[in-house]
Structure formats: structure tokens, C-alpha cells
């Protein structure tokens, strides 16, 4: 009988088996990808991103084991943002912008307020002279009436 040598396999690297376990592992893969995508968007270096990702995943697993609830993606992203804030990365807008290659300068200077008030509707040369002008001045519908009258007059002369 052939002597078979058993290769010891560290349990952690064993392939996942069972439908529930496969489903759960897929969710953890998604969480990993989401965390890495976020860190990549912040322009973290590959090594830094991986290290941070591992920490996030560890904390997320631990918390999940303790609480026994929560989606891996949501839990990981919450922890990531918390960790970034703890490390003054994401909460510090400047650092986030600089990581993205954008400078930190105020978009506008300090306010130095002053007033700029318009005169009440331009006073007319004729205001007060003809009270009925006010209405005509306001809407100028009179002009359109005038135009219509001219057109009618044209029609009258033609006919």
C-alpha cells in the first residue's frame, strides 16, 4: 500500500464550502473591493490601501461576530470612514484634497459686506404731470394698442 503523505493545510486557506458560507464570502469580497475602491479614489498607495483594508476587514469581522448582524459592505464602509476620521484623513478635507492632487485654498475671500440699493423705479420726466401716464408707463400695453391701430389704419386705407 502506497504510503500517502498528508500535506497539512492551514485551515484559514481552506476553500469555502456550503451555500451559506459561499454567499457570505461573496459579500466579504464585495466589502473588500468597495474598501479598496474608496481608498484608491483617495489615491492611497497600493501597500497602504491593502494594510488599511486588512485592518478594516478585521474590525468589521470582529464587530460582526460580536453583534451578529450587519451587512459586510455597510459595516466595512462605516468602519473605514470611522478609521479615516480617527486618523484625520477623510475628515480633514485638506488632506483628502491633497491626496487627490487638489490644493487647499478658500474658494472666496472673507466677506466684506456693503450695500448696493437701487433707486426706486426710475422717476419719469413727466411723473406727476399726467396721472394717467403711470398706468401706460407701467405696462406699455398702450404701445401694442398703438401698433394695432396703425395696422388697422393701414388696412383701412388699403381697402
Amino acid at each position: 500500500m502506497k504510503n500517502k503523505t498528508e500535506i497539512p493545510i492551514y485551515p484559514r486557506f481552506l476553500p469555502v464550502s456550503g451555500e451559506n458560507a459561499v454567499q457570505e464570502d461573496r459579500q466579504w469580497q464585495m466589502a473588500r473591493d468597495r474598501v479598496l475602491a474608496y481608498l484608491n479614489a483617495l489615491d492611497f498607495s497600493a501597500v497602504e490601501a491593502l494594510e488599511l483594508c486588512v485592518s478594516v476587514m478585521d474590525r468589521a469581522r470582529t464587530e460582526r461576530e460580536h453583534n451578529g448582524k450587519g451587512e459586510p459592505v455597510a459595516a466595512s464602509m462605516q468602519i473605514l470612514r470611522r478609521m479615516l476620521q480617527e486618523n484625520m484623513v477623510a475628515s480633514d478635507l485638506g488632506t483628502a484634497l491633497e491626496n487627490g492632487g487638489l490644493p487647499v485654498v478658500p474658494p472666496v475671500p472673507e466677506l466684506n459686506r456693503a450695500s448696493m440699493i437701487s433707486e426706486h423705479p426710475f422717476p419719469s420726466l413727466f411723473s406727476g404731470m399726467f396721472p394717467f401716464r403711470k398706468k401706460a408707463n407701467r405696462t406699455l400695453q398702450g404701445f401694442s394698442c398703438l401698433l394695432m391701430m396703425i395696422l388697422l389704419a393701414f388696412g383701412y386705407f388699403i381697402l
Partner: protein
Amino acid sequence: MKHTTDDFPQWPRVARRRRLILLVLILLPTIAATGYMAQVLPHRGTTPMELAVVLIFALLYGWISIGFWTAMAGCLIRITGREPYRISRIVGPEDADIPEDARTAIIMPIYNEDVQRVFAGIASIHESLARTGQGGRFDFYILSDPGDPDIWVQEEMAWAQIQRRIKDSPCRIYYRQRRSNTKRKSGNVADFCRRWGRNYRYMVVLDADSIMTGNTLVQMIRIMEKRPRIGILQTPPKAVSRDSLIARIQQFANHVYGPMFAAGLNYWQLGDSQFWGHNAAIRIEPFMKHCALPRLSGRPPLGGDILSHDFVESALMRKAGYEVWLACDLEGSYEEMPPTLLDELKRDRRWCQGNMQHMRLLFTRGLYGAHRVLFLSGIMSYVSALLWFLFLAASTVMAVLQEIREPDYFPTGHSLFPDWPVWETQWAFVLMISTTIILFLPKICSILYVAFQQGKSRPFGGWAGLLFSFITEVLVSTLLAPTRMLFHAKFVFMTLLGRQISWEAQQRDAEGTSWREALRFHWTGTVFGLFWGLVVFLVNRSFFWWLSPILISLVLAIPLGVWLGSRQTGQWFRRMGLFLIPEEKSPPPELTALAASSDQSREPADFTRAVVDPVLYSLHLSFFQKWRTPSSAVAERLRGICEKALSLGPLSLDDREKKAVLSDPASMAFLHEKVWQLPDDSLVHQWGIPVCLPPAVP
């Protein structure tokens, strides 16, 4: 000889004298031509119909005479070189440096503009200013009004990217997004003045398509410093950087005829000049004190916000005792023309409505007479189209009636001798020739001036290029005139009737005007032209030939619109050496930089990316000075929008909802957090969360 500040107080007297001469020059030929016109008509202008025709003719003739004499004055000045009242002459080499406290804000109010073009222009002007060594006296403000939410995000990203390029520059570039576009452009400028106006002595207003060289900006401020009575200093911008044929034709015309008209305008306006809304320097303190615009009572189009605010602001500035000058000989000020005829008409519709509002301001107490005339001239620039149309219509009616009605030999009642109703065509020819001279002599003078100046014709393609460009320009402008007349007449008519003309968003492809678009806008004119022509041809054939140039133009409006808006045609003409301008032969560094920046591709940015991308999100939040807590009703509405976005994806939001979210940092923070926690389904793809996001900025 350099003028001192004390030379110029005499200008009001000189201006009065010059304007009197202009008035005489306009009135005398107009009276004579009107007399001729009456002689042309069958009853010598004695019937009401003929009287109306004669009156309209008088108005139109007087109107074109103003342009003619302005151009002639400008021509004379350019030939002789004698104009002591050129505002640029008041500064000399000893005024080279701008004092430290004379700070200037270069402001660019924008609304849904091409982001790449805006920031390329700003970068180009910034570099040019830095080369003058006076950049520290200037700051830039990009004043954006709320429009498309995606453009809002793109502007923020473009602003952040430009900051990298100017890191160590003393000349800062600021960006402000307004929450509402109250009073449009004038409200946007007023908002700037209220917030930061006190930090600056001057502001230079630019349009989104404006370019100014650093030297010109410095020169303008030097002039303003030297003469504290100047409230507004306008430069004549030159048209550049367009490829379509119509824009190239206008660029050519602007370069050849423009300087002459500018010199002519300065001749009779002097310190009563106009503000054209951009490429001008303004003294901020009096502007804030005297030029705030009220809203006109009543509804648009004749009430509401003042659209053509620039004319009104210059009138108010003058009313307050400050001068408004046109620096007619200052170079280095550029703008871009509308690329197609339809774009031009769209702009004209806005201008027409704005100018017609000035009817309500004509009799404002305290305005200077010159500014009332400028208001009137702005109104007439569109009303003249309606008058021309009425003139043609009345002439046609008379011509038709003459054929179908019994002639009236005794129009004035009982008389011993009959009045033979005969059209005096020989007088008509005299009138036609005089009108042609008035319309085309200024152009001929400009061409001759350029042609006979040493080395001036070379940048325009030499003698041959100049001549062929001139002939084509005259042909095209003649062909386009009736189409423009028809549109302008419609704009005026509708505005007077209190109706706004609706223009749907144009479907303009990258190459210009499509056939479908041209058909949609010009078919009425074409059908009208055909019908008009047919009636006149059948009834009065001799009159048909008089009318044929107008009819041909109307009938050809559709192919003409497509052909003139084409970039390929424009580029073909350029290769043939036609419609060249000096800025194409030897472009100034500002325009070269603009072209280079405009060609660079930018990363796309939109609302979705602003929510998802942590860098863009952080950038957007950095624009909020403080986080205001919205009212409970607003907060509830915002929460509803966020929930909708999370459950249905970003495509479910309309522009108003997107702007509401972008305006509220708390909602942005909420969305950003929740979007990244979405389970992996189609929504994640809608939000554009990739497995590995690329870095935000390369």
C-alpha cells in the same frame, strides 16, 4: 503731445459742437432724400398710404445716415490721425506702475457656459497678467449662477485644477456659486459688489468668451487712475477664434470696419459713451452707489428684470457725474462671435427684448440727452427692421393696388388738370444709388484704408485676399439682411404685444446648423418669400424685379443658414486665404494659450461623481463656508430626495433635485455615506462605483 488731466474738461463743449454737426449732416440729406422719395410715388406722397411710406422712409434713411456719418468721421480720424480726445493719450510712461492700493477684480459672470472655455480663458489672461509684473494688483472672480448641476460640479473641479497651476501667484482666482440667479447677470455682478466690492477700487467685467491681454488690463487701470472722473472705460473687443463661415465673415468685418466705427463713435460720444457689458473697467464705488438696477414694474417682456443692463448702467453712471469713455484705440481686447446664424438670432432676441425695455427709461429724470439718444439708437437697431418690413409691405400693397384698381386721376378732389399716377423710376434710381452709397461707402473706405496702409493688408491675405473677402462679405451681408429683418421684425412685434418668443433648446451639432434645424426656423420665411414673390410676379412684374434681391434672400434662407454655419466651409475659406485676420497670421500669446488649453481633454465630472468620488465630494464640501441648518420642511424634502436617489438611483433625480442636494452639505454627506454602503446590484452601477475607482485627478 501728451495730454494732461486738465485738457479734457472742455470735452462736453466739443461734444456738443460735434453732435450738432452730426445732426445737421443727418437731417439735411434725409430731408432731401425724403423729398425724392415723395417724387418717386405716383401721387407724390399726397395720399395717406404714400404719406406713411414717405414717413417710414425718412426714419429709415435718417437711421442709416447715423451709421454712415459715424463711419465717415472715424475714417477721417484714422486717415489724418488727428483726434485730441482719445482717452488712451492721457497716460504716459511715467504712469507705468499701478499703485498698490488700486486693486482690481476681474470678474466673469457665467451661466451654464462651456466650462473648459471659461477656465482656459481665465488661465490665459492670468498668465498674461503675470508677464506684466503687475499681477499682484488683480484678482479673478468666476461668478457662477446656478444652472445645470453637472456644470456646477465641473466648474468646481476646473477651479481646483487651475489652483495647482497658480499656486505661488499673488493674483488669486476665486470661484463663487450663487444660490439663485436673481436679476441674472446684473444681479450676479451686484452680488459680487455687495460681498467683496469694498476690497477693490476697480472691476473689469468679462464675458465667458472674453479675452484680454495683461498689458491692456494694466493700461485700462492706469487710465482710470490718471482720470478719477472716469466711471466706466470700455474697450472695443475684436472678434476672434471662430471657424464657422458666418463667424469668420463677421470677424473679418469686425477687424476691417470695426476700428473706423469705434473711432467715429468716440468722435461724437466722447465722455458720454456706452458700456457694452463686458471688456470694460468700472470704478466700483460709484457703481455701487449709483448703478444698482431696480426691477421694472409689470411683467416681461417689457417689465421685470432689466435685460440690457449695460446701457442703463452707463446712463446712471453719467447721471451721477462720472464719465464713460470708449478707449477706441486700445488693442488686446477680444470676444467670440456666435458660430451660426441661429445662435446670432437667439442672442438678438434677448438683446431686442432688453433694448425694447429702454422705451420705459427714455424719459427718466436726470439722464443726459446723449444717453437718451443711445437708448433710442438701441431701440431703433431692432425697430428699424420692423419699419423696413412695413416699408416693403406698404410698397408692395401700393404696387399691387396700382395694377388691380382703377387709377385715380383726381386724388385731391375737383381739379382742372388730372394727376397722372406715374412711378418716377429715374428718381427711384437716384435714391437707390444714394442709399447704396450710404450703406457701402464706409466699407469701401475701410478697405481702401487697410489696403493703402503699409503692411496692413498682408495679415488679411494681401490685396487679392482683402478684395475677395470684401466682395464676399458684402454679398453675404446683403443676402442675410432680409432674413435678419424678418426675424428682428418678429421679435419687435411680439415684444410690443407683450409676448415672449419661445426658443426651444437648439439641437446644434458640432459642425454647425443641421438641415432639420434650419428648416424648422426658416421655413416660414421661405414660404412667405415664395408667396410674396408669386403674388408680385403675377400682378406687377416690374415691381417684382425691384423686390427680387429681398425675395431671393428669403427663399435661400435655409441653405444659406446651413452653409454659413458650417465649420468645414469656414476652414475651406481660410485655406483659400479669405476672411483672414491679423490674429490668425500672428496670434498673440493669450490666444495661443487659450487654444492650447481648450484642446486639452478634461476628466468628466457630474453630480453622480460629486456624490461618489471622495475627492470631488470633499472638494464640493470645501466650498461651503458654514453648514446652515435647513428648516424642518426643507430638511424633510431633502431627505425625501436622498431616499429617492438611494432607492431609484441618480437618474431618477431631475436638475432641481440635484441642485437642492448639491446646495446642502448635510444631504451630500448623507448620500455619500449611504451610496458607498449600497449592496452590489444595478444601483451601484448607476452610481458608477467601480471595483477600483481611478484617481480623481491625473
